């Protein structure tokens, strides 16, 4: 690690001295462009990553026992048949039948399900903002 960083610095210094354009940087920029074009179709997944950490979300979903009521792909034993299945959540139009599906709306719903839907059977698990955002991030990976 340390060695590679040093190597990079040396190369950097070389380039400054010789004034040769950095082919590697150009190639990298090209790769980024290609990746960006490729990712354009996956905007929602990028949004999911911005809102929170999907991997932490998967653990939070397990700890909050969401799977005892919901079917959630990728979560062990999440095979509940009380609430709706959460497969393809990223493609769903509505949350709980009342909110248009957006990351902000989902976080709000997760933090206070009974304020959004009066008489809701889904409990308020007392999620922290971080947890709610991570769970939302995981759900948006379900395309």
């Amino acid at each position, binding site marked *: 690690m340390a060695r590679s960083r040093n190597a990079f610095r040396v190369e950097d210094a070389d380039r400054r001295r010789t004034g040769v354009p950095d082919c590697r940087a150009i190639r990298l920029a090209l790769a980024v462009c290609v990746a960006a074009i490729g990712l354009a179709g996956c905007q929602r997944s990028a949004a999911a990553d911005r809102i929170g950490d999907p991997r932490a979300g998967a653990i939070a979903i397990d700890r909050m026992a969401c799977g005892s009521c919901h079917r959630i792909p990728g979560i*062990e034993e999440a095979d509940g048949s009380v609430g709706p299945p959460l497969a393809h959540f990223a493609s769903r139009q509505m949350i709980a039948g009342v909110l248009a599906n957006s990351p902000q709306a989902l976080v709000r719903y997760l933090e206070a399900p009974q304020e959004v839907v009066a008489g809701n059977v889904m409990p308020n698990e007392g999620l922290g903002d971080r947890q709610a955002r991570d769970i939302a991030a995981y759900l948006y990976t379900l395309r």
Partner: protein
Amino acid sequence: MRSSLLRRLFPGWLLGMFTAALLAGVFGALLLSGLIFDTSASSQHSKTFAWAIHLTMIHSVRERAGRQERPDAARHASLLNGAAAYARDCVACHGGPGAARAPWVSAMLPTPPYLLDSSSRWSRAELYRLVHDGVKMSGMPAWGEIEPDQTISDIVSFVQQMPKLSPTEFARLRQQARPATPDSPTAIGAQEPSTFSSASSPS
């Protein structure tokens, strides 16, 4: 001919058995030393391990869910006594309709599930077995050790009816169950018919 073949294979078989025993010994030593298994509840089980122990638990309960429940206990099971017992013994870990579990429960591993669809997952005999005898290493106590069998039957009946309760009805039952101390159990039983007829209406 056959005996010469056996004689030829025997050393290899012996070596194989020896290797297997050695590997098992090494694995056992690594396990007991704590190097390859983390018992902390902050680290998740691997997916395979979680799947395996959960499946073992399900099969163990199915296998042993016998006829321990006295039929008359099931017949006389009181939903309201069950509600009182559920509010006292169960709700902290398992929550209810619209009612969250206690905050520390999400820190348990495995974490106790909500029970709203437990009656579609388990038969009455299996639920009775689960409540009466608990589940090893999961935090689920064997309630039969400290509660009378009739109370276990009452709890099972309540758990089976729970999905039909709205959050408001569940909250009201919890409220009513609160004064249910051992010296006044009839205070709740007396209100049974009126309360439960409203509880079973669709909402």
